[in-house]
C-alpha cells in the first residue's frame, strides 16, 4: 500500500495507536549498542519466552519494544515501563520474570533495579526525574528510546512524515530553504555552517542533477550520536534528507554509514526499504512531482572522509583524498554535481523544524547557535552517555548536573570537545556557555559533539600525543604539511613524553603547528595541531614538568613514572597474582614491594588492588 496523503498518514497513526491502546502497559527495552553489549537482546528474548508460556491480561509480547539508545549507557541495560515511566537499570536476564510478575501484572516497583542518585543516595522511580534526563531537552533524539526503529508505523504514529507531507504539498522549495534559514540551524557535523545557506547555494546552481548526502561516518573518536540516531531513529534522518532533496531539487540521495556500525546499516537499510514500500521514497511522493530515492554507501574507515570532498570521492568508490576547495562541493560535489552534505544529527532536526516551526526552533538555544546539541558525554565523568541540551548551557551544567561530576570525586582537569580537530578546556572555562562560536573562540570547537571529561589522572601531554598520533594515522598523505608535519609533531611529543624533551621543543612545536595550520590542504591538517595548541595554552606547566623536571604529574607517561606500594597495603596478595611479570613480592598481611627492574608499568596491579594502595607518580 502506498501512503499518498497527510490524511493517510493520520490513518496509519490512528491504527497503530488503537493497536497500542489494547495494552495497559508497554515495556521499552533499550537496544542501543551499549545495552546490547550488556545483554539487552537476551532480555528481550526472555520477555518473549516467558510471554509465550504465560498469558497476561492487557499485555503481550507486542507491547515489548526494542528501542534505540536512551543515552544512559552507563546504567544499561535499561528497561522502562510505560505509562508510569518506571526506570529500571542494569537489568539482567534473571530479573525479567520478577519484573513481569511484579511490575507488569501488578503495579509494584522493584526498588533494587531503580537508579540511585549518587548525590542524594535516593532511589528514583521515574526516568524523567533522574538528573541525567531532567536537564536535557531532546529534539534530535526525540524518538530515541520511544519508538521501535525498525517499525515505520511506530515512527508515523509519533508524527513521522507529516513534515514531509506538509513540505511537498504546501510549500515551494524556496519556502523550505527560507524556513530552514529562519530556524538558524547550523550543521552539526563540525564546522557549524548555516544549513539554510548551504541548501540555498546548492539550489541556486543550475544543473539537471543535484545530490543530497547524509554523512553518518562519524569519524571523531569519542562521539557516537550519529550511530545512535541511525540505529534508534533512522526515519527522522530519511525524512530530513527527503526534505533537503526537495529543497535543492535532488532526485537521488546517499546515506554514508560507517561499516563498523552494523546495526546502523541494517536499520537504515530497513527504513529505506519500508519507505519504498509505503511510497515515501520513489516516484511522485505524496502524489506530487517529487521523485526521490536513497542509497546506502558504507564507509570503510577513514577519518579524512569527514571532509566533504573526500567523502564524496569515497561514495564514488575512490580513495578518499580531499581536493582543494576553491570550488565548493555545493557547486561541484559528488560526480561534479551540486551536492548538499549534512550530517545525521542535522537531518534529524529537520522534520521537527517543519512540525513546530522555525520560530519555535530559533527560540531554543542562543541567538547565533539555535536549537539543541547532542553530546556524547564520556571519559572520567560519572554518568556517561548521550545527552541533548539547548545551546548556551554551560560546561559545568553538563558535566556536573547531568554528568554527575567526576568519577571517585577526583578533581576535574579538562574537557575535550570537537574530536581531533578540537581542543581541551580547563576548569577556568567551566562556566563557558557551550555554542559553536564560544568554543572556537576558546581554542576548541563543537565538532560533532564528543565531550571527553578528564580528571587529574589524565596527562595533557599524553592527550596531545594521542590525538596527533591519531591524525598521523588518519592523514590521507596527500599534502606535505599534514603528512610530514604532523608526523614530526608527534615525534616531538613522544620525545617529551619519554623525558627527552628540551626547552626549545615547545617553540619548535608552536612554529611547526603554525605552518601546518596555514599550509595544509584540508580541514584535517588545518585543525590538526589544535589539541596540541590548546593544551599548550592552558596546561603549559605540564609540558614544562615533563621537559624540565622529567616528571609526569598525572602519572601516565610510562617513561617518567614509577609504581610503588604504600604502607597502607593490607597484604592481600591480589596484586601479586595480577602481575604477569612477577615484579611484585610479599607475604600475606605484609606490605608488598614492586621490583622496579621487572615492572613494565602495565597497570594490572592498580586495577587489582581493592585498597587503592599503589601509588603511581
Amino acid at each position, binding site marked *: 500500500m502506498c501512503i499518498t496523503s497527510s490524511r493517510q498518514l493520520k490513518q496509519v497513526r490512528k491504527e497503530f495507536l488503537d493497536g497500542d491502546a489494547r495494552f495497559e502497559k508497554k515495556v521499552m527495552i533499550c537496544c542501543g549498542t551499549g545495552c546490547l553489549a550488556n545483554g539487552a537482546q537476551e532480555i528481550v528474548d526472555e520477555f518473549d519466552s516467558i510471554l509465550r508460556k504465560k498469558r497476561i491480561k492487557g499485555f503481550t509480547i507486542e507491547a515489548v519494544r526494542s528501542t534505540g539508545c536512551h543515552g544512559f549507557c552507563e546504567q544499561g541495560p535499561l528497561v522502562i515501563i510505560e505509562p508510569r515511566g518506571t526506570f529500571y537499570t542494569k537489568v539482567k536476564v534473571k530479573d525479567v520474570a520478577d519484573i513481569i510478575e511484579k511490575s507488569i501484572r501488578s503495579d509494584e516497583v522493584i526498588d533494587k533495579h531503580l537508579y540511585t542518585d549518587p548525590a542524594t543516595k535516593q532511589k528514583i522511580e521515574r526516568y524523567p526525574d533522574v538528573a541525567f534526563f531532567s536537564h536535557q531537552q531532546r529534539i534530535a533524539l526525540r524518538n530515541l528510546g520511544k519508538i521501535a526503529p525498525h517499525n515505520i508505523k511506530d515512527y508515523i504514529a509519533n508524527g513521522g512524515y507529516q513534515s514531509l507531507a506538509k513540505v511537498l504539498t504546501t510549500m515551494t522549495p524556496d519556502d523550505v530553504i527560507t524556513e530552514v534559514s529562519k530556524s538558524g540551524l547550523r550543521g552539526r557535523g563540525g564546522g557549524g555552517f548555516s544549513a539554510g545557506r548551504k541548501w540555498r547555494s546548492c539550489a541556486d546552481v543550475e544543473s539537471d542533477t543535484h545530490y543530497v548526502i547524509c554523512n553518518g561516518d562519524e569519524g571523531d573518536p569519542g562521539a557516537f550520536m550519529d550511530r545512535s540516531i541511525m540505529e534508534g531513529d533512522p526515519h527522522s534522518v530519511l525524512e530530513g534528507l527527503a526534505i533537503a532533496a526537495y529543497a535543492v531539487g535532488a532526485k537521488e540521495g546517499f546515506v554514508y554509514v560507517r561499516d563498523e556500525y552494523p546495526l546502523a546499516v541494517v536499520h537504515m537499510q530497513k527504513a529505506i526499504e519500508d519507505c519504498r514500500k509505503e511510497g515515501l521514497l520513489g516516484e511522485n511522493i505524496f502524489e506530487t512531482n517529487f521523485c526521490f530515492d536513497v542509497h546506502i554507501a558504507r564507509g570503510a574507515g577513514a577519518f579524512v572522509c569527514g571532509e566533504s570532498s573526500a567523502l564524496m570521492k569515497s561514495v564514488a568508490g575512490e580513495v578518499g583524498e580531499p581536493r582543494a576547495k576553491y570550488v565548493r562541493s555545493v557547486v561541484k560535489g559528488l560526480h561534479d554535481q551540486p551536492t548538499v552534505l549534512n550530517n545525521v544529527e542535522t537531518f534529524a532536526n529537520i522534520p521537527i523544524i517543519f512540525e513546530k516551526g522555525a520560530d519555535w526552533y530559533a527560540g531554543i538555544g542562543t541567538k547565533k547557535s539555535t536549537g539543541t546539541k547532542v553530546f556524547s558525554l564520556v571519559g572520567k565523568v560519572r554518568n556517561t552517555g548521550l545527552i541533548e541540551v539547548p545551546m548556551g548551557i554551560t560546561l559545568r551544567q553538563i558535566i556536573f548536573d547531568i554528568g554527575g561530576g567526576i568519577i571517585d570525586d577526583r578533581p576535574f582537569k579538562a574537557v575535550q570537545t570537537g574530536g581531533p580537530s578540537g581542543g581541551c578546556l580547563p576548569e577556568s572555562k567551566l562556566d563557558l556557555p557551550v555554542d559553536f562560536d564560544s568554543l572556537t573562540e576558546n581554542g576548541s570547537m563543537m565538532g560533532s559533539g564528543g565531550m571527553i571529561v578528564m580528571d587529574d589522572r589524565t596527562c595533557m601531554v599524553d592527550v596531545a600525543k594521542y590525538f596527533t598520533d591519531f591524525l598521523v594515522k588518519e592523514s590521507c598523505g*596527500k599534502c606535505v*604539511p599534514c603528512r610530514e608535519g604532523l608526523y614530526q609533531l608527534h615525534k616531538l611529543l613522544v620525545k617529551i613524553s619519554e623525558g627527552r624533551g628540551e626547552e626549545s621543543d615547545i617553540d619548535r612545536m608552536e*612554529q611547526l603547528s603554525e605552518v601546518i595550520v596555514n599550509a595544509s590542504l584540508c580541514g584535517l591538517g588545518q585543525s590538526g595541531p589544535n589539541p596540541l595548541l590548546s593544551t599548550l595554552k592552558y596546561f603549559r606547566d605540564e609540558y614544562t614538568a615533563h621537559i624540565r623536571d622529567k616528571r609526569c604529574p598525572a602519572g601516565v607517561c610510562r617513561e617518567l613514572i614509577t609504581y610503588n606500594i604504600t604502607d597502607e597495603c593490607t597484604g592481600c596478595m591480589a596484586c601479586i597474582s595480577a602481575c604477569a611479570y612477577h615484579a611484585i613480592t610479599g607475604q600475606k598481611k605484609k606490605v608488598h614491594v614492586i621490583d622496579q627492574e621487572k615492572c613494565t608499568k602495565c597497570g594490572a596491579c592498580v586495577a587489582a588492588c581493592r585498597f587503592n594502595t599503589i601509588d603511581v607518580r
Partner: protein
Amino acid sequence: MVTLTINGKLVRAREGEMLLDAIRREGIEIPATCQHEAVEPYGACRLCTVEITKADWGGWKNHVTSCLYPVQEGLIVSTHSEDVIRIRKTILDLFLARCPNAELIQNMAAEYGITRTSYEEVPDGNDCILCGLCTRVCDKMGFQAISTVGRGHGKEVAPPLGEAPPDCVGCLACAQICPTNYIKFTDDGTTRTIWGREFELVKCETTGQPTITKEFAAYLVKHRNIPEDYFTRCDSAHREELAKTMGRITHWGRQEEA
C-alpha cells in the same frame, strides 16, 4: 582579462588562469614540485603557497597554493612575504627529513638556506616526495597502471599487488616526470624493465634502432588509430625514406622536363 597585483606590480592575466602561471610569467621563481603542465594541478607539495589579500579585506590575509588558485580581479599577491618564506622553509625542512638524499630537494632547500633538516630523519626515507606526478601522468595517459598504496605517512607509489603491473606499457612517462628521479628503469636497447616488468622494444627494420615498447606501439595502434606500419621504422629511417621518395618524384619531374 583580470588585473591583479603581484609583489607590488600590476599584472594582467587571463580569466581562469592559475596564479602560478601569472607569477612565473613575471619571471618570479617560486618552487613547485607537484606541478606539471601535463596534468591537472594537485596542491600536494604546498611549496607554491603565496599570500593573498584584497584592498577590502580589512587587513585579512590568506595563504593559498598558487598552482590551483585562479586569478581574481583586484587580488594582491606576495610571493615572498615573511610568512610565505617561513612556510616554504618549513616544508623544505620537512621534505629534507624524509628525502635527505634527493638532489632536487637539497637544491631547493639550499636556496632557502637549509642544508640539513632540523627534524628527526624519517627511518627508511627515500627519494620519493609523493608529489603524485607519476600516478597522475599514468592516469592521464589512460593506462592507470600504478597508483598510491596505503595512506598517510606510510603512503607509497607502487604497482598493484606489488607485482609487475598488467596495465603498464613501459612508456616511461612516470620515470621521466619524476622530479627526484626516484623511479628506476633499465633499457639495454632490446629490453626495458620498469616496475618489475620487462618489455621488448620495437626495432627499426632498416637500422635496427629501438624505438618504443611493443605494448606501447600496440596501444597507439588500437586506441589512437596510428597505422601499424608507422612503427616498423625509426625516425631517421623514416626521414631517409621521405628524402628518397621526394627525390624520386623530383627526379621524374626533371626527366619529364628534359
